[in-house]
């Protein structure tokens, strides 16, 4: 029998937790070297994330877009595509949401549907272009995605400054109409009756009153369940994964590899577009701004997917962790003056350690006494796996 510790060390979830803890320890070390009190810093960081219901709600709101982009990346990964273009797809989604949401003027449910659909469709098509270029012309998805990220950035700036959409005397566009808002009870919480209720309930006041609580997070959970279901329970999901794990075998069994590549990219993009839609409709300032460089929502999605090891459900938690650190990092800077970039270091170390964590089961396999039969089998498995890889 393997000891409990050994078993735990083979569990990817436990390993991820260890990676996260180590990430914090390394960050504390760096902070200490830089002259900041390490324990106090981490205390402030965690308190900044979870201190009050208001903070925790803000973390959820901040996390929602990167959970969506993380889901998009994870989905593409599962089907063998590296979607580094989440950044551009997200931006194009934001542009489409503002284009439709500030231009059309329908009552609430219709306006929301049109705005969200516009974002999802735009992002899906933008990502589909990457899939199309790869499927038809053999152009590496990484190079076309990187180019499209930049194009999206300048498209955003051009769009924001068009006469029709630019709001005079600002750096931004007009916001989407209020009928497109997806916050929870936005009018009620500012009405007399709403305020009366909130004043009597501190918890609700903190959660609802002080934040743009929106439906995005709930949709994100639904989306991750849906993605899991598609990948594991449907014929399409099987096809997509087959193309991802062995393109030649998939082709040989009659799967249309090219079509699946394009579809996979479109779904991945659509997920990023959902993130964009609920960012624009659910959070201040509901508009586009002129940007000097990209805002990293798509790139952060990469880290989220990697920490979650491409598990769609895992993306929710990894996204909350990342969003929480970003939010708490601001508190750390304002209270202690410690550079907020420590957050990027923590996340980077966690991503790095999660990638290294596959070492541990392998180490256990090679360093167990040979008379134990089940470990020998495990070793052989590893050998076979290794041989299959090359």
């Amino acid at each position, binding site marked *: 029998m393997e000891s409990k510790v050994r078993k735990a060390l083979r569990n990817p979830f436990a390993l991820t937790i260890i990676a996260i803890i180590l990430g914090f320890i390394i960050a504390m070390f*760096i902070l200490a070297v*830089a002259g900041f009190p390490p324990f106090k810093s981490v205390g402030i960081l965690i308190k900044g994330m979870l201190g009050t219901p208001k903070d925790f709600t803000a973390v959820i709101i901040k996390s929602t877009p990167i959970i969506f982009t993380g889901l998009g990346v994870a989905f593409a990964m599962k089907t063998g595509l*590296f979607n*580094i273009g989440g950044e551009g797809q997200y931006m194009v989604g934001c542009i489409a949401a503002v284009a439709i949401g500030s231009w059309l003027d329908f009552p609430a449910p219709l306006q929301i549907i049109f705005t969200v659909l516009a974002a999802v469709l735009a992002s899906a098509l933008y990502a589909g272009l990457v899939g199309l*270029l790869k499927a038809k*012309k*053999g*152009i*590496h998805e*990484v*190079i*076309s995605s*990187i*180019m*499209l*990220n*930049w*194009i999206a950035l*300048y*498209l955003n*700036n*051009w769009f924001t*400054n068009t006469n029709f959409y630019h709001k005079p005397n600002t750096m931004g566009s007009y916001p989407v109409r209020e009928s497109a808002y997806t916050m929870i009870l936005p009018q009620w919480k500012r009405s007399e009756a709403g305020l009366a209720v909130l004043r009597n309930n501190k918890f609700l006041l903190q959660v609802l009153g002080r934040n743009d609580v929106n439906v995005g997070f709930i949709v994100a959970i639904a989306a991750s369940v849906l993605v899991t279901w598609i990948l594991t329970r449907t014929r399409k999901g099987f096809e997509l994964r087959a193309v991802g794990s062995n393109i030649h075998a998939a082709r040989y069994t009659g799967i249309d590899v090219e079509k699946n590549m394009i579809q996979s990219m479109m779904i991945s993009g659509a997920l990023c577009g959902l993130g964009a839609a609920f960012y624009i409709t659910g959070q201040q300032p509901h508009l586009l701004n002129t940007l*000097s*460089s*990209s805002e990293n929502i798509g*790139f952060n999605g*990469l*880290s989220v997917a*990697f920490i979650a090891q491409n598990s769609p459900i895992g993306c929710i938690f990894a996204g909350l962790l990342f969003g929480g650190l970003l939010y708490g990092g601001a508190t750390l800077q304002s209270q202690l*003056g410690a*550079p907020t*970039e*420590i*957050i*990027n*270091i923590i*996340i*980077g*170390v966690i*991503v*790095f350690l*999660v*990638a*290294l964590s*596959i*070492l541990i089961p392998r180490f256990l396999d090679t360093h167990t006494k040979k008379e134990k039969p089940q470990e020998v089998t495990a070793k052989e498995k590893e050998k076979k796996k*290794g*041989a299959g*890889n*090359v």
Partner: protein
Amino acid sequence: MFNTILLALGITLMYSTPLALAAQGSVMSEASGVVNVGIEGMMTVGAFFGALIGERTGNPWFGFLCGGLAGAVFGLIHAFASVTCRADQTVTGIAMNLVGPGVSLFLCRLFYNGGVQSEPVKNKIPNIFSKNVLKGAASNLNVSWTTLIALLAAIVIWYIFYHTTWGLHIRAVGEHPAAADTLGVNVYKVRYICVIMSGFLAGLGGASMTLSVVSQFSPTAISGQGFIAIAAVIFGKWTPQGGYLAALLFGFFTALVVLLGGTAIPIEILSMLPYIFTIVILVLFVGKAAAPKANGKPYIKGTR
């Protein structure tokens, strides 16, 4: 007209320098079979340490070297993860892209009173000719020494790759590590050296940005250049000469944007052109990517 051409050439060479150096780094790593998406992070640490040391010591050459070495340290970490630990190279590369800029900006705030920009360096890396050698329009061609270094790096790496045993080893390790191993090539050693060199060159590329193109470090000094360098390598089909020419092409597109600025076309649309051109060229002329066969695959001794 002639003036404009010379001006375009000068700007092209200036902007292509950081890209060309980083692209050579990317070529080295990928040719040996290790994907390095961490080029962006390595360029950023190079840019920061180059600017910091250059500003503090007043010696831009020493800063340039330190920028390269900072990149090399990150290269070493990437090599350890991807060669020794056989971790997913894409993932550890992305981790480099988080830690690299994270460390750079963290230190920048510590050294420069909480600011995210360094002080400008007093001495930039000098141009090849002294001030009055080239007169008039020809002075556009008085480029920085780093531009020449980038060109030399490409030539040296091209020579190593195709005319020395060492280069043969590198390419063999990237195409079929097991075959190289049976011939007595130390796969791990070759990959370690290539990935560390990749970090060094990316670091030099970053430092050339902050020591010869602009003269200080800022969060947007690199922003995305590393990814473009990777794109340049794919564009150049994983060869040193291809990577260098692709970097020149990107530099040329940037020059076009600079020269066409102020005309009727909105600047945002102009800025898109380099990226649109790249995709169009890929569709029309370049076609299928041909990565080294073992690219991204960890090598386990004893497997086929």
